[in-house]
């Protein structure tokens, strides 16, 4: 008897105990912020129950669960803050909030004084490092490859922004639309062509697997690369 099937019932038991305890605590809670914090515990219980299956499929189910959970927490905390603000001061203080304002630097203390023109590494290295990362990401394919590819693009664009020869705002607008459109087309390739192909023509599974992997890499890479163009100075 292997370890996964030996420990299956124990893992499920622990997950259900944690879930029941945290749900009971949520039901007794008055404050919204505490409820939000306790929701994190419920997510832990859910992840334990999925992980108890112990196969590759369970791992593949955990990854989107984590990302969706993060987006959920971000949205709910934003709504909570906004509602509290609306309730507290309706007209007195109409300050606009930026996302993650607390963690951003108030001013740039060093960047303006450093002379970037004298740093040779900013001109020669980023192209090489970005090229290597994009090549390696294309070789990996899939979600991980897309993330590595995007980190190469991000690195290149950020360093271009730092030495001040970024593109103008007008150019960005067009390239932004183009890159997000490209990402959408790749999403369609990944889901419609790749995934549907698995189920419709199982005998040609290798072909559709390659399509899905490459399309996912390009989609993730282009989508995350958009973050880099945000930083470019106009």
């Amino acid at each position, binding site marked *: 008897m292997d*370890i*996964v099937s030996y*420990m299956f019932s*124990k*893992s499920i038991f*622990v997950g259900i*105990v*944690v879930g029941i*305890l*945290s749900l*009971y*605590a949520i039901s007794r809670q008055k*404050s919204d*912020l*505490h409820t*939000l*914090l*306790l929701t*994190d*515990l419920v997510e*832990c219980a859910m*992840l*334990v129950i999925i*992980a*108890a299956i*112990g196969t590759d499929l*369970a*791992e593949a189910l*955990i*990854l989107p669960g*984590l*990302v969706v*959970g*993060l987006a959920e*927490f*971000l949205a709910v*905390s934003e709504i*909570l*803050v906004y509602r*509290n*603000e609306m309730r*507290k001061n309706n007209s007195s203080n109409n300050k606009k909030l930026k996302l*993650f304002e*607390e*963690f951003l630097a108030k001013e740039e203390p060093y960047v303006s004084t450093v002379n970037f023109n004298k740093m040779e590494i900013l001109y020669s290295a980023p192209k090489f490092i970005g090229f290597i990362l994009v090549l390696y990401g294309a070789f990996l394919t899939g979600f991980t490859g897309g993330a590595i590819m995007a980190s190469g693009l991000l690195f290149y664009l950020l360093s271009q922004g730092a030495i001040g020869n970024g593109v103008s705002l007008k150019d960005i607008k067009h390239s932004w639309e183009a890159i997000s459109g490209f990402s959408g087309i790749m999403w369609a390739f990944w889901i419609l062509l790749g995934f549907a192909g698995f189920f419709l023509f199982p005998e040609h599974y290798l072909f559709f697997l390659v399509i899905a992997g490459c399309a996912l890499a390009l989609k993730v890479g282009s989508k995350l690369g958009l973050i880099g163009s945000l930083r470019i100075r106009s």
Partner: protein
Amino acid sequence: MDIVILTLYLGYFLLILGTIGVIMGPKVSDPLNRLLNIEVPSLGLMLIFLAYNQTLALMTYIAINSIIILVFVRAIIRNEELEA
């Protein structure tokens, strides 16, 4: 006993004890204390992932966990500012 089973039991122990700590630990009426207590069950969850050999899930959970802490700290700071 195998070291994998030991890791798994340590994960169960931290998960259940941490859950009880989050729900009725000392001074949890302060949201920041409750947020810090949440780290204990998440460490237990990471040990369980480690015992089940789910590398990608473990790495993604570590990354996501640090971002979730930022989100919660931001919500707590905002709330405190508004109540003060």
